[in-house]
C-alpha cells in the first residue's frame, strides 16, 4: 500500500523514514472502518446496525479519521520496515515526527517516522594487533599465603585464661564512651563486641591500646581522631573510652602436614597434593586473568580503529540496566538509592553522566565482538556445548543426561553456547594478534587487577 518511501540515515544511527500512501488506499481503509462502525455503534433514535454512514460521519467523523490515520500508519509502516534495509532495534519504537498528521480519505497521505537502527560498523583491522602479554610466576610467597588461608580456615579458637592480649588474639570487650567528667555517654555502650586484635576492624581503632590487657581488666583509653578519619562522627574529635576485656581467645592454627591436607578434602593424601592443587588453581586463575587482560587490550584497539554511530536508545537501555543493577545492591529500593544520592549532592542524571563513557565502551566492544563473530563465522558447535555440560556434570558427580536436563530447564544452554562462542572469539583474536612479552608482575597484583 506504499507508493513512495524515502530512507535517510542520520547521525547516531537514527533513521528518518518518509512514507507516502496513495489516496485510494486511505479511502479503502476509511470505508472499511466506517462500515465496521455502522454495524457496531448504537445511536439514540436508530436501531443497532441501522445507522446511516452520513449520521455517523457527522457525529464521529474526526475520530474515525484519526483511527484511519493510525491504522494506515501501522499497516504501511509494517510493510515498509519489512522491505527497508535499516531495521529498527527491538526496543526502539518508530516515532512520528509530526504527531498531528491525519489521513484524509481519498488524498495521498505522507508522513515521516524516526527510529534507531543497529549501527553500521566499519570494522577496523583486527589482525596483527599489538598487545602485551603480562608475565607472572607463582612464587613461594603466593603458595605460602594460600596455605596460610587454608590453615586459617581450619583453625580452632580456644579461650586462654590469665594471658595478656597479643596481636592475633580474638577478644570480647565491653566499652562505653565517657564525657569529660568520666561519666558514660548515653547510647554509646556496647557489650560483647568481638574482634581480632591487629586487624583494625573496630570503630575506634583501639587495637594497639588493648594489647597487654588481661581478661576482666578495665582500662580508660584516650584517643584523638584526625579530620580525615573514615567514620565521620568521630573525625576530628577527642574520645575517652572505657574498655573492659571480657574474654581472650587464641586462634590455634593446625600444623602444615598431610593430616591438614586430608582434612581439606578426601582427594588429597599428602601435603604435596594440596600444594599441587593450589598451584594448579592459581595457574588457572592467572591464565584466565591474563587472557582477559589480553582480550581487553585487543578489543580496545579494535574499537578505537572501528567506526560506528551508537544510537541513543542503545545507550539509554544499557544505562537503565546499570541503574537497575545498582539498585539491586540496595534491595531494589529505588527511592532509598535516590535519597542516598541526594545526600551526596548527586542525582540519577549525574550518575548516568558518569557511567556513560564506560557504557559506550562496553556496547562498542560488544558490537565489535559480534561483528567479528559474524565475519569469521565463529559459533559453538553442539559437541562443544555438550563437552562443557559434561565438564559441569563431572565436577558435580552427576550424569551427563541429568546435567543437560538441568541446563535446559534453566534455559541455560543458549547462554552456554554464547559464552563458548565468546571464548572462541577471544582465542581467535589473540591468535591473530601480535602478542609480545610484557612486563613481569606479581601474582597477587595480577589476580587483583592491579596492572
Amino acid at each position, binding site marked *: 500500500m506504499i507508493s513512495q518511501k524515502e530512507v535517510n540515515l542520520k547521525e547516531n544511527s537514527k533513521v528518518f523514514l518518509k512514507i507516502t500512501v496513495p489516496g485510494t488506499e486511505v479511502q479503502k481503509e476509511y470505508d472499511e472502518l466506517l462500515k465496521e462502525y455502522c454495524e457496531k455503534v448504537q*445511536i*439514540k*433514535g*436508530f436501531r443497532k446496525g*441501522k445507522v*446511516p454512514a452520513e*449520521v455517523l460521519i*457527522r*457525529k464521529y467523523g474526526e475520530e474515525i479519521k484519526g483511527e484511519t490515520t493510525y491504522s494506515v500508519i501501522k499497516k504501511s509502516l509494517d510493510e515498509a520496515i519489512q522491505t527497508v534495509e535499516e531495521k529498527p532495534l527491538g526496543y526502539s519504537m518508530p516515532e512520528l515526527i509530526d504527531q498531528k498528521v491525519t489521513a484524509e480519505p481519498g488524498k495521498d497521505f505522507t508522513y515521516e517516522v524516526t527510529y534507531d537502527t543497529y549501527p553500521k560498523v566499519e570494522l577496523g583491522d583486527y589482525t596483527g594487533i599489538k598487545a602485551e602479554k603480562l608475565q607472572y610466576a607463582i612464587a613461594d610467597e603466593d603458595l605460602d599465603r594460600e596455605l596460610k588461608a587454608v590453615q586459617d580456615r581450619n583453625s580452632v579458637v580456644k579461650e586462654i585464661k590469665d594471658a595478656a592480649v597479643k596481636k592475633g588474639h580474638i577478644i570480647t570487650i565491653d566499652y562505653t564512651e565517657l564525657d569529660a567528667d568520666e561519666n558514660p555517654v548515653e547510647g554509646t555502650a556496647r557489650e560483647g563486641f568481638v574482634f581480632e586484635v591487629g586487624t583494625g576492624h573496630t570503630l575506634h581503632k583501639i587495637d594497639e591500646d588493648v594489647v597487654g590487657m588481661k581478661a576482666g581488666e578495665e582500662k580508660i583509653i584516650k584517643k584523638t581522631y584526625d579530620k580525615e578519619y573514615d567514620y565521620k562522627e568521630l573525625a576530628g574529635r577527642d574520645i575517652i573510652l572505657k574498655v573492659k576485656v571480657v574474654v581472650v581467645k587464641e586462634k590455634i592454627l593446625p600444623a602444615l602436614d598431610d593430616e591438614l591436607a586430608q582434612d581439606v578434602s578426601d582427594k588429597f593424601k599428602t601435603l604435596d597434593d594440596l600444594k599441587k592443587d593450589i598451584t594448579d588453581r592459581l595457574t588457572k586463575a592467572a591464565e584466565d586473568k591474563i587472557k582477559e587482560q589480553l582480550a581487553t587490550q585487543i578489543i580496545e584497539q579494535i574499537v578505537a580503529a572501528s567506526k560506528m554511530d551508537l544510537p541513543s536508545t542503545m545507550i539509554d537501555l544499557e544505562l537503565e540496566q546499570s541503574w537497575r543493577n545498582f539498585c539491586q545492591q540496595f534491595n531494589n529500593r529505588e527511592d532509598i538509592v535516590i535519597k542516598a544520592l541526594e545526600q551526596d549532592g548527586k542525582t540519577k542524571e549525574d550518575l548516568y553522566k558518569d557511567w556513560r563513557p564506560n557504557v559506550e565502551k562496553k556496547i562498542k566492544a560488544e558490537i565489535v565482538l559480534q561483528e567479528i563473530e559474524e565475519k569469521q563465522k565463529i559459533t559453538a558447535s553442539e559437541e562443544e556445548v555438550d563437552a562443557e555440560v559434561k565438564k559441569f556434570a563431572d565436577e558435580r558427580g552427576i550424569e551427563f543426561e541429568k546435567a543437560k536436563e538441568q541446563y535446559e530447564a534453566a534455559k541455560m544452554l543458549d547462554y552456554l553456547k554464547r559464552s563458548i562462542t565468546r571464548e572462541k572469539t577471544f582465542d581467535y583474536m589473540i591468535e591473530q594478534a601480535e602478542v609480545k612479552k610484557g612486563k613481569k608482575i606479581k601474582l597477587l597484583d595480577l589476580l587483583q587487577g592491579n596492572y
Partner: protein
Amino acid sequence: MEASKVIIAPVVTEKTNRLKEVKRYVFRVDSRANKFQVKRALKEMFNVHCTECRIINVKGKPKRVRYKLGYTATWKKAIVTLPKDETISAFEGA
C-alpha cells in the same frame, strides 16, 4: 419570538432520516410556537421556504422510578416540507 428560541433541535432518528428523501425535515420546537413562527424561523436561520408545516404535540409519557410516578416532558414537533430545490445542510446529528 427569536428564531433560535423557536427551533430547539433537529430530530435525528431512523424515521426522520427516511423523511428527508421526500423533502421533509423534523424539528423539536418551542411549545409556544405556531406553524407560522416555525416557518419564519427556518427562513431566517437556513434561508429555506417551507411549503408546508405540520405540528404535533408529543405528549409526555408516564414514567416510574421505583414507587415514584412522573411524566417525561411534553414537547412540540414540527414537520416541514421544503420545495424540491432546497435543503437544510446543517440538519445534523444532535
